[in-house]
């Protein structure tokens, strides 16, 4: 059985269930208590779990991250909320030089079971410092895992896996998806990390999309179907470790691929996906060069029309797919 709920509600339910099931799970973040989080995700959790486990922090992103690390290596399973992904730029030393490396540097004698939740993406008029899509940075770092759900069910299911995982997991939410609704299983249903999901099967072209680009790609696939183009839409869901085999297998089948992501095109996750395909045997099955559709090479502008032009939209996906089909 499933219920229809929003992406934000699904994440909240995941947090609540894990906190009920495991005393070691604590929440840290700015305004996650009485305010309920900048996007309302943690609304009500302070009331249920109290301020011993739901901690409103000062504006000190580096310390908050380190606080989660210290808790994690000594018996807690902290879940941190960084209010906007942009602010993770203040956590890089603790995340990358400490959380990601501690276990390895210590010869496997410590574990860092923590989750860092943060909303990324543009489209809300928040401009250049509140619209970043930085997931590729973390996918470049051994020791970290990176998750980016596109549906309510994936959001909850991947969050359960992330909290139960014994490694630091960067859990990337999308501002534009918080209010989108979808079916979520009644029973706690973990979605395994590292497994891509074929959101729509198809035969002519593979469309790999992440985050908010998944619904856009699915909408485009619907229209393409009417034109007689059968697009297979795949969401990697986990960006590190990347389930390249599922993507490569699809390209082997279709011979055409369009990779859609919101982050800046250069060195965004699409670069790695393209490279994995190019170094695989699938490269010889390509009937057209690989196409990447990424964000423009600029900061996110404030103006609504410019902001829209800065990242791939449904029509851009349609154009790109039609182009590879024509090639």
């Amino acid at each position: 059985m499933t219920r229809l709920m929003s992406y934000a509600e699904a994440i909240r339910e995941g947090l609540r269930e894990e906190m009920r099931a495991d005393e070691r799970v604590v929440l840290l973040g700015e305004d996650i208590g009485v305010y309920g989080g900048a996007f309302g995700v943690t609304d009500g959790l302070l009331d249920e779990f109290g301020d011993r486990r739901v901690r409103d922090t000062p504006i000190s992103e580096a310390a908050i991250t380190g606080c989660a690390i210290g808790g994690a290596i000594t018996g807690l399973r902290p879940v941190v909320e960084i209010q906007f992904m942009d602010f993770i730029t203040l956590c890089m030393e603790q995340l990358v030089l400490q959380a990601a490396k501690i276990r390895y540097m210590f010869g496997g004698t410590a574990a860092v079971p923590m989750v860092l939740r943060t909303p990324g993406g543009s489209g809300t008029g928040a401009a250049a410092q509140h619209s970043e899509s930085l997931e590729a940075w973390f996918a470049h770092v051994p020791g970290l895992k990176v998750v980016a759900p596109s549906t309510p069910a994936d959001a909850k299911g991947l969050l359960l896996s992330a909290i139960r995982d014994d490694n630091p997991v960067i859990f990337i939410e999308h501002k534009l998806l918080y209010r989108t609704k979808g079916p979520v299983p009644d029973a706690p249903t973990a979605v395994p990390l590292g497994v891509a999901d074929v959101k729509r099967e198809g035969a002519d072209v593979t469309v790999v999309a992440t985050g908010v680009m998944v619904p856009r790609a699915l909408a485009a696939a619907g229209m393409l179907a009417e034109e007689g183009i059968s697009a297979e839409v795949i969401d990697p869901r986990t960006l590190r470790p990347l389930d390249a085999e599922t993507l490569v297998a699809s390209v082997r089948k279709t011979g055409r691929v369009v990779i859609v992501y919101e982050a800046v095109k250069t060195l965004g996750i699409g670069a790695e996906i393209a490279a994995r395909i190019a170094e695989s045997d699938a490269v010889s099955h390509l009937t057209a060069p690989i196409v990447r559709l990424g964000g423009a090479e600029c900061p996110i502008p404030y103006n609504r029309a410019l902001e829209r032009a800065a990242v791939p939209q449904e029509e851009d996906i349609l154009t790109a797919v039609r182009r590879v089909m024509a090639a």
Partner: protein
Amino acid sequence: MKTVPPAVDRTLSMLRMMLLIRAFEEKADELFALGRVHGTMHLGLGQEAVATGVCAALKPEDYILSTHRGHGHCLAKGADVGRMMAEFLGKETGYCRGRGGSMHIADVSGGNLGANGIVAGGLPIATGVGLSIQVRQTGQVCVAFFGDGAANEGAFHESVNLASIWALPVVFVCENNQYAMSMPVRKSMRVARISDRAAAYGIPGMTVDGTDVLAVYDATEAAVALARSGGGPTLLECAAYRYKGHSKSDRQRYRTRDEVEAWRRRDPIAQLRARLIAGGVVIDADADALEAAARSAIDAALRFAEESPEPDPASLLDGVYA
């Protein structure tokens, strides 16, 4: 804190400026309610005396670094209201060609090096402006505005320390409006006054009533004089209050109506107005006229902004690189 009472005309222009800032933000609030603002915004209604008193103590060639709650700073530093409203609405004629919006309005030629979307993000930059002034020996001063919440960021610590050891001409102005979003100051730090933190850097610290524009002006004047004379930075805390929510998504569960009302009774504009009337400087009618003038200046600015073109999407990549 008061030294000599500032000249009457200066006081009047401070009243004019506070009225202009308030009119701007009330209009901004109205436009938002009408759904005509893309994104969010942060209003400083109630904090007008801080921006006004501080900037009145600066010269046109001095610099400021502003915050996400920066409309007041920008106007007080002398920005053109029309270009500012245009930026607020994302128009091509705005200060940032519509690329910045409310959170990034900058008037570089006017000495406002920008609002900042990052809490405490302007503080490290302020040290560099101070260094530049010191190296080029221009005698300017740089004011870095920041909030009470920003005082808990590492950037605050590193920046004030750096400015102190090099005796940079920077004045750190903390606008303590009692909350960082939903976090009350008393829960985010264990000191009574944020200015107590000056002791960690061996620099002067002062706390003034941020609803009293004259007190803010006098304190800033002293700090600026010290900075210009090579005496280094000062940590100036101005205690004030924001009347509105933190941003547009704020249900304000963290404070009481009574608290808001109590602060509204100390309104900086009403205070100064009463003072000037009591002092016989103006009569009610004059004050009303100034208020009306501020309103019509904003209406004109809005007309300018509305008649201004939107940026051309083809210009998306303009200005990424010099």
